[in-house]
């Protein structure tokens, strides 16, 4: 039985089709686009907030998208435990919406970074890393000007204590170093989850790295993970 991905489309989203393609053509699952002005999630089992430049990044990244008509339904879905993945601009929307803590600052060097980086999977007890191994290195592309993750010291302490940092920028050997940090993010944080662990946001683009033709298929594990996690959940429900 296949699961249904709901891919939210904001004006300015540009990785929505990549996420749809990864879910359907690569993984053989169902997927549907959800226009930001819709109020219904159309029965989606998992929500993806894709990368791009929603509303032109006006005011702040994700600041306008946060007030989209579809957001209340996504907040309800997330609070009920539904898996939500925010990628790049989608991560920024989750931060603005308060589903994840912290905020993004301009990259430390003020440059837009468009390159492949390596991230280390720190935790595999989220629906988007369940099929990955702890410490696994993923080669993923980044493309952002504001990925310099910031939260105050108390929030960072809480995130670390609760093992909510899910991905960290690292070098090719898996070492978390300052040189491997592309944007200045606190503690090399590339992705994190909420307290209930069902909402995950990350700056790199796993949906653009799901086939060897694209230079890396390492991102597929996030999509495979959620398919696996939901299959287990379904099996538990029917048991």
């Amino acid at each position, binding site marked *: 039985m296949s699961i249904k991905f709901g891919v939210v489309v904001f004006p300015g989203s540009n990785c929505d089709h990549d996420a749809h393609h990864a879910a359907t053509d690569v993984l053989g699952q169902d997927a549907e686009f959800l226009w930001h002005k819709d109020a219904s999630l159309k029965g989606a089992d998992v929500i993806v907030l894709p990368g791009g430049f929603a509303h032109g990044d006006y005011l702040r990244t994700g600041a306008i998208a946060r*007030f989209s008509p579809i957001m209340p339904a996504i907040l309800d879905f997330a609070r009920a435990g539904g898996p939500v993945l925010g990628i790049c601009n989608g991560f920024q929307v989750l931060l603005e919406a308060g589903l994840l803590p912290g905020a993004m*600052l*301009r990259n430390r*060097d003020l440059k837009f970074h468009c390159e492949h980086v390596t991230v280390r999977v720190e935790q595999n007890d989220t629906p988007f890393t369940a099929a990955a191994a702890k410490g696994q290195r993923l080669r993923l592309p980044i493309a952002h000007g504001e990925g*310099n993750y*910031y939260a105050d010291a108390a929030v960072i302490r809480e995130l670390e204590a609760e093992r909510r940092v899910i991905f960290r920028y690292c070098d090719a050997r898996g070492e978390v170093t300052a040189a491997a940090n592309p944007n200045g993010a606190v503690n090399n944080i590339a992705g994190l989850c909420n307290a209930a662990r069902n909402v995950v946001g990350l700056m790199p683009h796993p949906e653009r790295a799901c086939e060897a033709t694209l230079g890396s298929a390492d991102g597929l594990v996030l999509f495979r993970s959620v398919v696996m996690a939901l299959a287990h959940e379904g099996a538990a429900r029917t048991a």
Partner: protein
Amino acid sequence: MKARVYVTLKKSVFDPQGKTIADALHSLGYGGVTDVRQGKFFELELSAPSADQAQKLASEVADKVLANPVIESYRVEVE
């Protein structure tokens, strides 16, 4: 009635743009500029019965939309 809203990064938050501008000014010989913080400026046209109400309204939208309280602080002036 008009309100001006000034949004800047909090003192505790590093401002890479402000730092770059300060460095550029120093390289131009403006050693007297010791630091720069870059921010945003908004002019709001308000329909409010009093200056107090205008202040309240502008502060509310600054807090909810114009500034992100995680990283930014704001100041409101009503005229």
